[in-house]
């Protein structure tokens, strides 16, 4: 038998108090944030998309065309002066409200457009960041662009943020 007075209760108590504070915070904040997501997530998505479109227009104006392409550079006749890698990424997540709607949609089958829109915005953001990276690095064109998607939380794990990481990379070139 362990004598109860021999156990050091201080740190255990501290951990218990911290956990209960977190639990209370969670219980209060979750419904509020869920409601926030239900009311504003569609609007936020639209706002983000408009923002991306205007940034895209600005960078297309800077380059004179869309700099990104999946070509490998064989079509270039003039010759390339310099090249180097550019990459950008974004972690984007649907709100729990949207996940709930998607869950209901999945019962009926067909396209789950609410999630599709979230991923589309994330992908547009990643490619736009790639254009901006290319602009700050001073590249004139980006070749061999690839876009990768990875889950932040593996599907075998129940708890954890439900988010996707979208990663775009390519080779920036400067003609000369």
């Amino acid at each position, binding site marked *: 038998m362990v004598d109860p007075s021999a156990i050091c209760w201080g740190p255990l108590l501290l951990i218990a108090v911290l956990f209960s504070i*977190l639990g209370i915070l969670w219980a209060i*904040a*979750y419904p509020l*944030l*869920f409601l*926030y*997501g239900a009311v*504003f*997530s569609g609007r*936020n*998505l639209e706002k*983000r998309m408009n923002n991306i479109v205007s940034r895209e227009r600005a960078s297309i104006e800077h380059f004179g065309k869309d700099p990104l392409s999946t070509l*490998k*550079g064989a079509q*270039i006749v003039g*010759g*390339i*002066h310099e*090249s*180097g*890698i*550019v*990459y950008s*990424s*974004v*972690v*984007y*997540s*649907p*709100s*729990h*409200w*949207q996940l709930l709607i998607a869950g209901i949609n999945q019962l009926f089958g067909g396209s789950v457009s609410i999630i599709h829109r*979230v991923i589309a915005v*994330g992908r547009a*953001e990643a490619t736009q960041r790639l254009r901006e990276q290319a602009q700050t*690095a001073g590249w004139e064109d980006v*070749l*061999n662009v*690839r876009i*990768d998607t*990875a*889950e*932040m*939380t*593996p599907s075998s*794990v129940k*708890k*954890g*943020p*439900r*988010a996707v*990481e979208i*990663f775009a*990379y*390519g*080779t*920036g*070139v400067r003609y000369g």
Partner: protein
Amino acid sequence: MQHIRDGIMVVNTETIAGKVITQNLGVVGGSTVRAKHVGKDIGAFFKNIGGGELRAYTELLEESRSEAIARMVADASARGANAIVNVRFATSAVTSGAAELFAYGTAVLVE
């Protein structure tokens, strides 16, 4: 030059335009597993309910990616290469909140 690290050019095309590959030095790679501290995890968890970008994790992946690239470049320079071509990236989520990043490519000598 930002894109030339330690004198090594890194591209994801199969050749470097304007240069000739003279020698193939094999596949080089670098990987890293990183995590954010628990405060950021909790913040991201709350942000996740409302949806949108999770900035803490975007940062996390950015950091780990540049670390993976740095390790790949160190591997290549140990082999005496001066360029890495056809670079690819792979991501895997081992547990939630930690990301394994792997960058790999072919180390070559170019002229």
